[in-house]
């Protein structure tokens, strides 16, 4: 090895301080070079970017605010526990204005500009349906927390999933037996004359029929209506239960006028808490609801039998025992729905880890891994309760809560079983090409 010049004589090699510093600087420069960082992090610790399509403005803003809080809490919990496959999770938020056209643009922006791994978090059905084509075209998995039946209807595409909240068709079917057995068998429906109302209009009558009860009248109220008194005479006198799903700012007027119409002698009332999400149940005018029943996905008020996971979830999200923001009793949460964000993010974590997901090139694998999921056990990741997942229709099925308004609070009086809400699949997404 040794030669005259000592070039290859290691014994003669000396490392001066200047040379060492140069070498270290070069090494550091290389490590800090953008390309190198990207490469090394992609292999190990680059964040998994989740595009959060948020309703920050528009009609869904109250939901959007709480969906963001819940998602941020879930991301923190996931990151504190080591992230997804050891990689941290980062939420990238874009406002869709609760508008389907803007929603589609936002999905494309996530896919092409932010280059997020998935898109997540949409609630309003028309935004989901408007955005779904963009998700399919960009081949980016789109995890929604919408409650609508649109995903399970298999009318969207293979990239759209709803694994964190049960769809409304299943919810209605699961609650019909309790309504027929406990509230009454002659039901009058009052619903807004648009799609949210139509789900109830279409799914409730067959579900009640199967339980030996009947919908004896259906009263559709135009979305532009601000006074409801003129509709109440249409309620048949023999009505035993009024099933109401009014939504929007007019709901307070609706309840107040219904109270004035009936006085103290009223039929049973059964409603969807969607009407009063983010609204204080003790607001003036809502006294008439005392003793009535509501569907809740997850209970707004802390219950005596809450699991440790439910308590931990509520603490992490920052809601007090009354379902309002800790420190601000007037900031009432959208508790019945927002748990879906928490649970969906854990489903994403599970599916990514199952798929060995490394980056956008593995999105198809992520779709298949999600479709392969079967059930989610109740626990810290699924505090609302256990769920099953049908990979063919991309929809989960969980338990539902029926709560009674008592003393200004909502008390859970019945929990449905998962099987109460199962129905025949209407199609199969897995037959579509990826």
């Amino acid at each position, binding site marked *: 090895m040794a030669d005259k010049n000592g070039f290859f004589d290691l014994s003669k090699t000396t490392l001066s301080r200047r040379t060492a510093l140069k070498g270290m600087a070069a090494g550091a420069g290389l490590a800090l070079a953008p390309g190198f960082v990207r490469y090394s992090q992609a292999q190990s610790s680059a964040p998994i970017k989740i595009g959060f399509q948020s309703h920050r403005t528009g009609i869904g803003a109250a939901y959007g605010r709480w969906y963001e809080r819940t998602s941020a809490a879930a991301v923190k919990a996931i990151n504190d526990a080591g992230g997804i496959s050891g990689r941290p999770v980062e939420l990238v938020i874009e406002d869709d204005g609760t508008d389907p056209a803007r929603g589609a643009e936002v999905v494309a922006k996530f896919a092409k500009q932010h280059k997020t791994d998935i898109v997540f978090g949409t609630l309003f059905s*028309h935004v989901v349906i408007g955005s779904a084509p963009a998700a399919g075209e960009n081949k980016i998995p789109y995890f929604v927390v919408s409650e609508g039946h649109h995903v399970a209807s298999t009318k969207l595409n293979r990239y759209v999933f709803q694994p964190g909240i049960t769809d409304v068709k299943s919810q209605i079917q699961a609650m019909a037996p309790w309504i027929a057995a406990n509230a009454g068998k002659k039901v009058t429906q009052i619903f807004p004359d648009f*799609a949210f109302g139509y789900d109830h209009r279409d799914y409730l009558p067959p579900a009640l029929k199967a339980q030996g009860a009947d919908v004896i009248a259906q009263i559709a109220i135009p979305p532009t209506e601000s006074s409801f008194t003129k509709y109440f005479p249409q309620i048949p006198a023999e009505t035993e239960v009024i099933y109401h799903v009014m939504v929007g700012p007019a709901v307070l007027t609706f309840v107040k006028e219904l109270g004035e119409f009936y006085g103290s002698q009223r039929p049973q009332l059964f409603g969807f808490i969607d009407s009063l999400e983010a609204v204080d149940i003790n607001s003036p005018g809502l006294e008439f609801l005392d003793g009535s029943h509501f569907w809740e996905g997850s209970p707004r008020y802390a219950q005596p039998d809450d699991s440790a996971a439910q308590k931990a979830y509520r603490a992490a999200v920052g809601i007090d025992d009354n379902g309002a923001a800790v420190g601000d009793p007037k900031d009432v949460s959208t508790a019945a729905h927002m748990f879906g964000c928490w649970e969906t993010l854990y489903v994403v974590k599970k599916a990514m880890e199952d798929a060995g997901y490394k980056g956008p090139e593995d999105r198809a694998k992520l779709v298949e891994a999600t479709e392969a999921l079967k059930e989610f056990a109740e626990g810290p990741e699924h505090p609302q309760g256990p769920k099953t997942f049908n990979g063919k229709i991309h929809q989960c099925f969980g338990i539902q809560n029926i709560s009674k308004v008592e003393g200004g609070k909502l008390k859970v009086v019945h929990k449905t079983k998962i099987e109460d809400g199962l129905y025949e699949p209407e199609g199969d997404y897995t037959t579509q090409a990826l």
Partner: protein
Amino acid sequence: MRDASPAKAYALHIAVVALLFVLNFVLPDYHQGLFARIMALAVFAMGYNLLFGYVGLLSLGHAMFFSAGLYGAGLTVYHLGWGVPEAFVAGVACGALLALVIGLLALRTSGVAFMIGTMMFAQVFYLLILYFAAWTGGDQGLVIQQASRVVTVGGDALDLTDPTVRYMSALALFAVVLLITLALVRSRFGRVLVAIRENEERTKMLGYDTGANKLAAVVASGAVCAASGAAYALLFGYVGSSFASVQYSILPLLWVLLGGAATTLGPLIGTLFMYYVTDITSGFTSAYLLIVGVALILLVLFFPKGVLGSIRQRWLGWLP
């Protein structure tokens, strides 16, 4: 229009189309998609401009013409399984027919009454979409599946969901409508429309049938807006009632005012500006509409005739 130099005007318009063509190859992915959307909607603004800019009729109901095209194309694909070209023609025909009917009724009025009348008709149209939710999908809308959005040209299948095909399709529609608009406004018919805007009584006295000309303008405007709606449904795969809401009647008005009413390229500039201000500012604040509002106020203060209208007034008098 002071210097009626057709060569200059046509050269400028062809250059704009050529620039948009080149942009397809240089724009980043996201902006390529956004430009496709902007070009499709700029056609909507051009249709609106035809009536508002050149005839001086302020309509607050043009969302119905856009939606007539949107649903005319979307529903024929969704329910009848029609191909893309037939559906596009159906959409344009629906818009033209609706415009004819609305024109016959609404043109009995003028000024504020015309504005309110068109708004009311659009509201009826919007509520009809909700009423017939079993077919239209109501407020949730309908998805036109990717498989239905393929055009076969000479044995080759063109997938409208492909970013380049979509961009080029939007550009083709934009270019055709732009050149037709340019030809139209430079034609005898276009000059009669401007005459009506400036002084309808005098135009009448000169022997022109202003009623027939206005009706023709409403139909042409409705058909162009419907072409935009039909293209939107077929290119982006979603048909929903929000496109028929009053917001989509006001948007083309804003785009045209911003870009310059009665300028052929103004609608493109206005649409482009509004889209990008919204897109960029929404990344920083949820109060982005406030910023859009401030931007609009500043534009009105410093460019009262819109960007191109003011440029034409101050520097380039030949701009069509």
